[in-house]
C-alpha cells in the first residue's frame, strides 16, 4: 500500500513541477500532493498500530507459553521426588 502511495505522490509531485515550470495554476496540484501525503501519514500510523498490536499479541503468547513450560518442568520435578518418610511416634518418655 505504501509503495502505491509513494508512486502516486511521485506522479503528483511531477505534475506539480510541470505546472510550475509551465506557469500554470498549481493550487489543485498542491492540494493533490497534500492529500496523498496525508494518506501516507495515515498509512504509516495504521502500520505502526498493526505492528504494535502484533508485537503485543506475540509478547502475550510468549508469556503464556513460558508459564506453561515452567509449570510442566516444576511438575516433572515434583513427580520425581519420593514422598518424605513419616516419623513414627516417639517411644521416649
Amino acid at each position, binding site marked *: 500500500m505504501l509503495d502505491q502511495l509513494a508512486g502516486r505522490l511521485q506522479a503528483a509531485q511531477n505534475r506539480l513541477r510541470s505546472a510550475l515550470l509551465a506557469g500554470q495554476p498549481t493550487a489543485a496540484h498542491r492540494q493533490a500532493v497534500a492529500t496523498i501525503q496525508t494518506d501516507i501519514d495515515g498509512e504509516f500510523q495504521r502500520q505502526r498500530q498493526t505492528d504494535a498490536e502484533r508485537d503485543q499479541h*506475540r509478547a502475550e*503468547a*510468549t*508469556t503464556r*507459553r*513460558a*508459564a506453561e*513450560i*515452567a509449570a510442566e*518442568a*516444576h511438575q*516433572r*520435578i*515434583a513427580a*520425581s*521426588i*519420593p514422598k*518424605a*518418610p513419616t*516419623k*513414627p511416634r*516417639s*517411644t*521416649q518418655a
Partner: protein
Amino acid sequence: MTIEAAARFVAQSELALKATYEAEVDAAARAAQIAERIAATERRCDQVRADHAAKKLTDVEAGGLFALAQADVADLAELHRAAVELVGHATEQTRAAAAELSRAEAELSRAEAAAQFEALSEHAAELDEALCYCVSELSVLARRAGRPSNGLTAVFRPSSTLSAMIRLGQIPPHRETA
C-alpha cells in the same frame, strides 16, 4: 539460568522458529508461482510455434508474439532467480532458529536438573534425619526389650552400601528406576 528464564527462552525460540518456517513456506510458494508462470509462458511460445506451423499466424505475427513471450520468460527467469535466493535465505533462517530452539531446550534441561538436585538434596536430608531418629528409637526399644543395646551394630546393621558411603565416601552405583 532459572527454570522461568529458560522457559521464556524456549517459548521465544519456538515462536521465532514458527515465524521463520512460515516465511520459508511463503517464499517457496512464491518461487513455485513464478516457476508456474514461466511454464505457462513457455507453453505460450509452443502455441505460437504451433499456430505459425498451422499457418494461423504470419511470419511477422509469429515473430512478434514469440519475441514478446521470450522476453516474458527472460524477465520471469530473473524474478525466479531472486525468489529462489530468498528461499535459500529463509531456509538458513529456519535452520538458525531451530538451532536456537535446541540451545534453549538444553538450557531448560540444565535448569530443571539443577532444581531437581536441590529438591532431592532436601529429600536426602529428610531421610538422614529419619534414619537417625529410627536408630535412636531402636536403641531405646532394645533397652526396654532387654536386648543388647550397646553400640550401633547392636540395634541397626547398615547395608554395605550405606557403610561404604559413610566410611569411605563412596557414591552408591546409580540404578535406573522403571
